[in-house]
């Protein structure tokens, strides 16, 4: 009879003892100052973002007039965004896009991929883009956004993402595991830093695409490669944190901290 090399702790009712007051305090210390600093500096942050974006885009489009605009955003005060001349799609481009969407749908049907998660995600993407295309077939002049207005929307959306991330990241790391404050802080910083960098890069890329290839792709960029992708890397960084915590508690120095009710 083979013998077990290792006997694992019974998982059924195990738990850890956390200092609830310290966890709440740590969460608040992570969340509240970050929120205050962020909200008080929205103008500065968006100004820097706009400056970087303007600089990058002026290298790509040296002849275009690229300006930084101000806008009021409810209680958050002033925020800044980049204004670019709007490029509208040619009718032939709209038709080609519609044909491509139809082609993607047909291929997925033929490959029987429409019922799979990636297929459903792609169908959603295609649907959003088709609606945008149809809008330009029948009422292109009525399209409600210029690149400047989209840019304004994007910054507002990004502010929403950053505020949500500060709150959510503080909560999900703040109560996980006993102490481990270093890991928690690192995870929080990692999420926010990645979000800042990714948000900025995406802003530049989106404005480039909209100006270069027209506002036909606006809804696609806004709905499909929007907040959902931010949450993917949020969860990915959180997963690294959890894996580290699991290692600490099952194989590391914290393995003696398990309680059984």
């Amino acid at each position, binding site marked *: 009879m083979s013998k077990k090399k290792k006997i694992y*702790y019974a*998982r*059924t*009712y*195990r*738990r*850890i*003892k*956390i200092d*609830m007051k310290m966890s709440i305090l740590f969460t608040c210390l992570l969340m509240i100052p970050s929120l205050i600093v962020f909200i008080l500096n929205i103008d500065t942050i968006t100004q820097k973002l706009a400056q970087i974006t303007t600089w990058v885009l002026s290298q790509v489009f040296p002849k275009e007039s690229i300006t930084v605009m101000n806008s009021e*955003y409810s209680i958050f005060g002033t925020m800044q965004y980049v204004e670019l001349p709007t490029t509208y799609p040619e009718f032939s481009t709209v038709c080609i896009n519609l044909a491509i969407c139809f082609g993607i749908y047909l291929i997925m049907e033929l490959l029987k991929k429409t*019922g*799979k*998660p990636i297929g*459903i*995600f792609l169908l*959603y993407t295609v649907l*959003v883009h088709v*609606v*945008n295309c149809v*809008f330009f077939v029948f009422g292109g002049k009525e399209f*409600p*956004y210029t690149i400047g207005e989209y840019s*304004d*929307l*994007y910054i*507002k*959306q990004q502010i*929403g*993402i950053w*505020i*949500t991330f500060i709150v*959510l990241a503080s*909560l*999900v790391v703040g*109560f*996980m*595991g006993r102490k481990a404050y270093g890991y928690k802080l690192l995870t929080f910083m990692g999420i926010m830093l990645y979000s800042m960098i990714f948000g900025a890069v995406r802003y530049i890329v989106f404005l480039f695409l909209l100006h270069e290839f027209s506002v036909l792709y606006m*809804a696609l960029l*806004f*709905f499909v490669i*929007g*907040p*959902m*992708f931010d*949450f*993917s*890397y949020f*969860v*990915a960084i*959180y*997963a690294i944190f*959890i*894996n580290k*915590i*699991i*290692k600490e*508690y*099952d194989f590391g120095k914290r393995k003696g901290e398990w309680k059984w*009710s």
Partner: protein
Amino acid sequence: MVVAIIKGYMVFNIILILIYVIRHFLFGINRMAGRQRLYYNDIYSSKMKSITVLIPMHNEEQVLSYVLDSLLECDYDRDRLEIIPINDNSSDRTKELLDEYHKKYEFIRPLHRDCPDRGKPVGLNDAMQIATGEIIIVFDADYRPAKDMLKQLASAFEDPEVGAVMGRVIPYNTNKNILTRLINLERSGGYQVDQQARYNLKTIPQYGGTVGGFRKDILLSTGGFNPLVLAEDTELTYRLYTSGWKVIYANSAECYEEAPETWTVRAKQIRRWARGHNQVLFRYFFKTLLTPHMNFREKLDGILLLFVYAVPFFMLLGQIASLVLFFLGEMNLFAGWWVLLFVATYCSFGNFAPFFEIGTALFLDGIMGEVFLLPLLLFNFYFYMWNISLGFLDAIADIVTKRKVKWAKTARFTEKKKV
């Protein structure tokens, strides 16, 4: 006016989903750091309860020997045990195989059903009529109960308040592909954290239709399972609570199941669950609100649990509403705040358990590595939202047309046991 309604709907959606996020967050904290409510593991009775194990089967020749052999290994007094495999209109060798078992073991008494009304609820109803045990334990045919499973499940019924008990389900084919791995994450979050936290907090642990049991007399006195309801398990949970009984969760009673290995099978399963669960929502919403047998906490959680399979449909409408607002040029107000909708959706319904709940479960289960799959739930979110919404619409169509539901079995993937 229309824009105002859509905006109002968006606000409703955001609030609703935030409530679920808070609920699951509290579950996670409670399970990780709260005092755990133990199951009745230490109860030993000199006279075991007489039990009947029912195993609904439809063309289960591939898997039936696994579940029966596992049950034969179970530690339970043979004179207090009866096993009734319900052969429900099988066209494969299920009947012959079951008869062979019957020849070897007298207490395995197959019920062969050969009639047009196929389905789990009617099959269980017929089997309960001939069952001799006072407690009914149910397993699906693809399950593999552990040796102490029957003893564990039966011991809860020493408590006269307990109407049903539910054990923990763990997939055994987790390494098969990405789908089975993701289902394993869901199951971990759903049982290790969600069910146990609900048990800790004395809200509504749910009887799941398999790896669980109930008192036969309650079911028979209330007319048996309703064949018009696909989620007979959820229906039983609410029937018991609204009549003053309790459902108990046994986290220690671990049983292994076969997780679906293809997305097509999973989609059908999820759609069926959503349809059944929403049928129960329509039948029990007011009963749950008005019953004198449930306290405020149970009612609150009971209502939230009832809506679990309706919320993805609300979210789908939310996505459509946000598209409409976008093309009407009315997105300005929501540009920052609709993010909350996404946070909440991803947290709550990217899967059956939010990512932080699954993270907590994997931490408690001590499962390293698998946690890196969490970001893939992004794609599952659309998959579930779509299929659950279809199930929700099915349930509405059931109510409107009063059509008879048809039971569909989940396809099996295990290779037949070699004798």
